């Protein structure tokens, strides 16, 4: 971001950023513009996702879903937001007024601030923070503060249940999430989002998910933990409608209620972007090797199509992950509080710890045996690539094919047929 503005100052405006008095002002303006753009993006994306999720849910449940406002109901979220804004902002008389009012903002801030480091494509991120991943993990913790505060401040027993469940759940699942995040960090040797992506490749077998069994397992652990942190089914205990009415947002109405949902849907993007960055190669474009990219960078000219292609690929990966999360929500039942805790502490944490040790040991051994120089050698490289490819076939394609066949079979068994036209 800073380099870009510096370049604009030098090339377009003809000043030296070190000495030009307006530099700081321009920085501030750019920060505000980017902040506004990202907040808007977050809000609009969350809104669109609310429509998209309802459409998918409707299709899964053989309903139609919202299709009245705008073409195919795309603008439904605007109608919803308008309705929520116009509603009375009801604050229960016995609630803790100040905390009740600010709780949704904690949730929103925890979600919006993650965009500071999240990449959207090659070099497309507001900052290139060297502790980017650490920043995401810590800033998302604000969300649980908001949920806990809202649960307490509502002065409703259902809200309190929701808030406490959320606190217990999110705090627990941050541990396996942290362990799983450590695996790609060890594999890439960096906390920087872009460096982690650069350590992977464009083809699926170059992704961290399919490079090693521990990377593969870490993906699923992180995926599960992220579902739990985002309060998505099967971990939607904090807002379990059938048990505790609506959980922490029982007493909320109007736009404050809307903020919780905005953050929840927006968090899907955050989750999926982090997963895609860490395990699915991020913005890496297939058939463009890192060697070629570094050559372009050395020459000082990366073609525009690469920027666009990388952004498209990143967004596509994110959308696929979001769709999977939505499918899961509309398929699975909810687990119980004790089962949720068991899963975390008895399974995910020990397995995560084992994966971290495995990943660290492998890196150490390969470093000890081959040294940094051997990594670049053609023979070692080709053996490694073959292994990665074989693992991708076993762990990636086989389950995918099984999934497709099973889905097909289930559709045909009820006398239905595969039909994508009846939206």
């Amino acid at each position, binding site marked *: 971001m800073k380099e870009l503005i510096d370049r604009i100052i030098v090339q377009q405006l003809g000043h030296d950023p070190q000495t030009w008095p307006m530099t700081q002002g321009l920085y501030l303006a750019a920060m505000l513009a980017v902040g506004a753009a990202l907040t808007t993006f977050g809000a609009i994306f969350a809104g669109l996702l609310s429509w998209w999720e309802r459409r998918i849910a409707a299709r899964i449940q053989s309903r139609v879903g919202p299709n009245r406002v705008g073409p195919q109901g795309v603008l439904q979220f605007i109608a919803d937001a308008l309705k929520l804004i116009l509603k009375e902002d009801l604050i229960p008389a016995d609630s803790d007024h100040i905390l009740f009012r600010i709780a949704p903002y904690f949730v929103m801030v925890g979600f919006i601030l993650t965009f500071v480091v999240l990449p959207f494509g090659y070099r497309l991120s507001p900052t290139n923070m060297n502790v980017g991943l650490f920043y995401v993990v810590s800033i998302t913790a604000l969300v649980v503060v908001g949920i806990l505060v809202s649960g307490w401040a509502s002065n409703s027993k259902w809200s309190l249940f929701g808030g406490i469940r959320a606190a217990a759940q999110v705090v627990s699942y941050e541990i396996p999430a942290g362990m799983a995040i450590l695996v790609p960090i060890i594999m890439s040797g960096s906390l920087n989002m872009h460096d982690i992506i650069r350590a992977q490749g464009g083809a699926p077998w170059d992704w961290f998910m399919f490079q090693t069994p521990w990377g593969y397992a870490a993906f699923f652990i992180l995926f599960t933990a992220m579902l739990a942190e985002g309060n998505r089914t099967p971990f939607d205990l904090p807002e379990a409608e059938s048990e505790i009415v609506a959980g922490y947002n029982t007493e909320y109405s109007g736009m404050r209620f809307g903020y919780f949902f905005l953050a929840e849907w927006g968090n899907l993007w955050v989750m999926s972007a982090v997963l895609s960055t860490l395990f699915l190669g991020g913005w890496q474009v297939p058939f463009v090797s890192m060697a070629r990219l570094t050559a372009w960078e050395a020459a000082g000219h990366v073609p525009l199509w690469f920027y666009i292609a990388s952004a498209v690929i990143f967004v596509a990966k994110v959308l696929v992950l979001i769709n999977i999360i939505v499918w899961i929500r509309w398929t699975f039942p909810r687990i*119980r509080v004790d089962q949720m805790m068991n899963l975390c502490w008895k399974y995910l944490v020990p397995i995560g710890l084992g994966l971290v040790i495995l990943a660290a040991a492998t890196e150490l051994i390969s470093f000890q045996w081959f040294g940094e120089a051997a990594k670049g050698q053609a023979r070692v490289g080709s053996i490694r690539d073959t292994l990665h490819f074989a693992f991708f076939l076993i762990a990636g394609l086989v389950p995918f094919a099984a999934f497709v066949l099973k889905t097909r079979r289930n559709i045909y068994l*009820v006398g239905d047929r595969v039909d994508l036209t009846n939206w």
Partner: protein
Amino acid sequence: MALDQLVMTKFGEGAGEEMILNMGPQHPSTHGVINFVVHADGEVMHKAVPQVGYLHRAIEKIGEIVTYPGFMPYTDRIDYLAAMFANEGYALAVEKLLGVEVPPPAQYLRAISCELNRIASHLISLGSMAMDIGAVTPFPYALRERESINDLLEALCGARLTYNYHRIGGVAFGMADDWAPLCRKWLDHFDRILDEWDRLISFNEIFIERLAGLAVIPLEMGIDYGLVGPNLRASGFEYDLRKAHPYGAYPDFNFKVPIGKAYAGAHRGGQVGDTFDRFYVRVLECRESVSIVRQALDKFPAGEFMAKVPRKIKPEAGEAQSRIESARGEMAYYVVSDGGERAYRVRARTGSFLAMGIIEELSKGLMIADLVALIASLDVVAPEIDR
């Protein structure tokens, strides 16, 4: 006043340990207007005391005010999810008073309509149970099939929810010629849907884990509390009025009575009479009902659908009792006549009311999420509890 002080003063010394939580009467998963006073210590309940009576409409009293045929539409309101059974039970009781013999086609139509209604009722029960566990999708699937049943029943009797189909001495309308093929077509379709249902939710690992070994009702306890129907059969007792005391056309049909067999599997902690058994027994009963409807359509006899009943029904003084196997278990009517046009006393005994009694005992030590599953598994329906 601080909250804990308030609790102390309101509920006495030592009550501060417990959180008293009013679950209902407007709660998403109390299955109607029922209130549960939950004494909870965090997520774990000490007990949940059901409070009934929010939906009491004095239906039995109405039975003493209106004429015998005039009470039939009111019986629909006793159990709106399985109105056919409430119809049939009352009709059987008054027929006994009158000494009327119901012609075979009417008996067959009663069996067909009741079994279809049983499937519809079980679908609601199974679907809402899945929804209470957090799986939203099975519920619309169940409702979709129930809509088809409603279509069929509408074609048969003109109503979709409160049928008022059974009459004293027979049924209101005969079966149209093209109705049987429609019904058969739907039954073939429904067989596949039941398989899909099992794949979708019954055999879902999370679902089974949630329900296995939960709120086990041992057989003695079930009998002590007077449980009936699928709730009792899930505890392993093969007692079905259609077999034990056959009525109507049921002696003509071949069917099994599914009982609980720890379907969740021992390795998951499944026990006979646990919540999953109560769920799965209902799925199996749907299959049996499909088979009964098929047999009834195959063997459908010729003849009248209404017996000769006087226009003004005035039974001789006396009393009669009828028992039928409703979707929620044994439903009994007790009708006393004083020789007039109106019943002297009408009493309905329904399964849900007794099932409510067992909740307080079973809820000790359960979690709040489990209470929801327990209520759903007992398949209680608020109007049937209160009448």
